[in-house]
């Protein structure tokens, strides 16, 4: 049974100059113990979607559709229940949050805080749990006494993951957990995340603009463009044989070292990301699409079937089937 079910989810930010449709009708589901990757360039709505799942959006954001966590509708939940869910069932590791650790408190105290605040443990038990958590993320227990500035970027990111694990959630949402970390540290953090999924049965939603990283960790991949999912399917298939031209551009952006095709030939995508307040008509990708047809500027595209367990929102897919 699916742990999480999104049905036609939309998010609109209301700002002084009008409305920003940041997420536009996203439907996805996640099985218990599975890992879903969400890819897309900056501004495509990934973080907004992640925050909507736990109702962490600012008040002026309007959320539509249905979000079912274990069959319960997150959007209509009472606040008390919502808070409990945030700690006990699902937690989120924010983009760049390792910079958000409190600089004047020892990391052990910061990890223990949710346990104490929610009366899930007495101070002694909490200390023991902190040691366990640190070990689980590959840090020695004595690190509990360190202050954030005494840790490297990768170690701080591990502390953030330990905090997210504190109340044994069933789902972790990791928003760009390795962006801006160097390759070796990124490998350490990704190995840790993979172990958590494989050995502890934790479900994962991981957000990144690097398809190769997502393909490495996740079973399924959803590619977002301008607030919509434009391609969805098993991650290796989406990465190696994308059906949507935007996914293809993302996949080609990080070359395989040793592949003669990409040697001295970096591949990018021209044009600028769309302004959500002035979305192009028809397929939102058409102004940048290398294989656009005339009708793409006017026709409505939707996620069409694109092979076994795959969908893509491109007219070429529809023609092929």
């Amino acid at each position, binding site marked *: 049974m699916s742990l999480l079910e999104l049905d036609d989810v939309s998010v609109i930010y209301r700002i002084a100059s009008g409305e920003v449709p940041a997420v536009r009708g996203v439907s996805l589901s996640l099985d218990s113990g599975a890992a879903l990757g969400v890819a897309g*360039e*900056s501004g495509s709505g990934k973080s907004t979607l992640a925050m909507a799942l736990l109702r962490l959006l600012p008040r002026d954001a309007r959320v539509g559709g249905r979000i079912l966590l274990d069959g319960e509708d997150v959007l209509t939940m009472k606040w008390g229940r919502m808070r409990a869910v945030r700690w006990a069932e699902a937690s989120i590791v924010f983009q760049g949050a390792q910079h958000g650790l409190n600089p004047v408190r020892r990391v052990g105290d910061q990890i223990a805080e949710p346990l104490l605040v929610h009366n899930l443990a007495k101070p002694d038990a909490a200390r023991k749990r902190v040691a366990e958590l640190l070990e689980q993320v*590959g840090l020695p227990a004595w690190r509990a006494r360190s202050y954030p500035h005494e840790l*490297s*970027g*990768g170690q701080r990111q591990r502390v953030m993951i330990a905090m997210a694990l504190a109340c044994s959630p069933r789902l972790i949402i990791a928003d760009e957990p390795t962006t*801006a*970390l*160097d*390759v*070796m*540290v*990124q*490998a*350490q953090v990704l*190995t840790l995340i993979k172990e958590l999924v494989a050995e502890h049965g934790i479900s994962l939603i991981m957000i990144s*603009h*690097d*398809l*190769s*990283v997502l*393909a*490495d960790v996740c079973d399924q991949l959803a590619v977002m463009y301008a607030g919509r999912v434009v391609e969805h399917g098993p991650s290796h298939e989406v990465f190696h044989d994308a059906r949507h031209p935007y996914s293809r*551009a*993302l996949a*080609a*952006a*990080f*070359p*395989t*070292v*040793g*592949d003669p095709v*990409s*040697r*001295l*030939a*970096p*591949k*990018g*995508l*021209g044009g*600028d*990301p769309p302004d959500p307040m002035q979305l192009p008509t028809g397929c939102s990708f058409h102004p940048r699409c290398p294989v656009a047809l005339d009708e793409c500027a006017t026709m409505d595209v939707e996620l069409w079937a694109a092979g076994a367990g795959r969908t893509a929102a491109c007219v070429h897919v529809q023609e092929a089937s």
Partner: protein
Amino acid sequence: MTETQAAAEAVSTTRPTLLEARDLHVEFASRGRRARAVDGVNLAIGAGEIVALVGESGCGKTTLARTLLGLERPTSGEVRYGGNVLDYRSKALKAYRRQVQLVLQDPMGSLNPRQTVYEAVAEGPRIHGLPDEREVVTTALSRAGLRPPDRFFLRYPHELSGGQRQRVVIAGALALDPKVLIADEPVASLDASVRGEILALLLRLRADLGLSALVVTHDLGLAWNIADRVAVMYLGRIVESGPVEQVLTAPRHPYTQALMSVLPESPERVVLTGEPPDPTRIPGGCRFHARCQVLASGKAAEAGVDGKCRSELLQILPAVPEAQAACHYAALSQPGA
């Protein structure tokens, strides 16, 4: 040291050397200790050549780059440009900085939010008193791919996309008509889709203007995408260097092998553990020995070099274009290296 010096004299790149580090050392005082951030580096960048400098966070890449730019003074050793030792008197340094331009990593951080694109690009030419400012700015923006240039003159950074901001930073460097660009993580803060566009721009600048570049990064894919040669740095020193095709398809230093092995999709990973290396405590013997997988797995012992790994210093690699690695174990398979 004499061996190193001799090797440095014999520098022979296929392209004439333009910018060079010779036996460069840069030290900082750090909590009462000496941090040897750059600890003996020979590196030559040829005219029209793109060299990638790779290595993990804290290994000394930025310090080396800043020293090549004359922003940091070497503790010993020298920087040479066009065959001449860098002159640190302010007038000479100012002239040098026109030739060798820095392109910073974070376009948001390096652009002033209250300055228009025109003002940002015109700043360098004004400092250097160049004539025809408008013409210079127009050409630079156009070369950086912001076309038509006058449409961007009055825009502010927040009105641009991340890729456009990076292009403005590059235009600012191009406005002085430099010979060398030193780019520190030029695409690290950019989206995947924009990344390729900026890298393609660097290649185009080399083709059109004959620019040389040193690209500092921890992204090996970037090196594969645009560099002719790659130098791998570990704890203040270059431990492997050579043509990209050779070094990145058949890495010989265990550290380079580990870096390659953690790329997505590589079959067998060597995830290095241990604390990040500390330039105030550079280990004796091979500086990588405490983390080296070849030594830890017993392969070095089998080959009979484990004693050397722990106690015998490695020679500083000379600035030659051929593939080379500073490793006792790798030396066995390539005698004379």
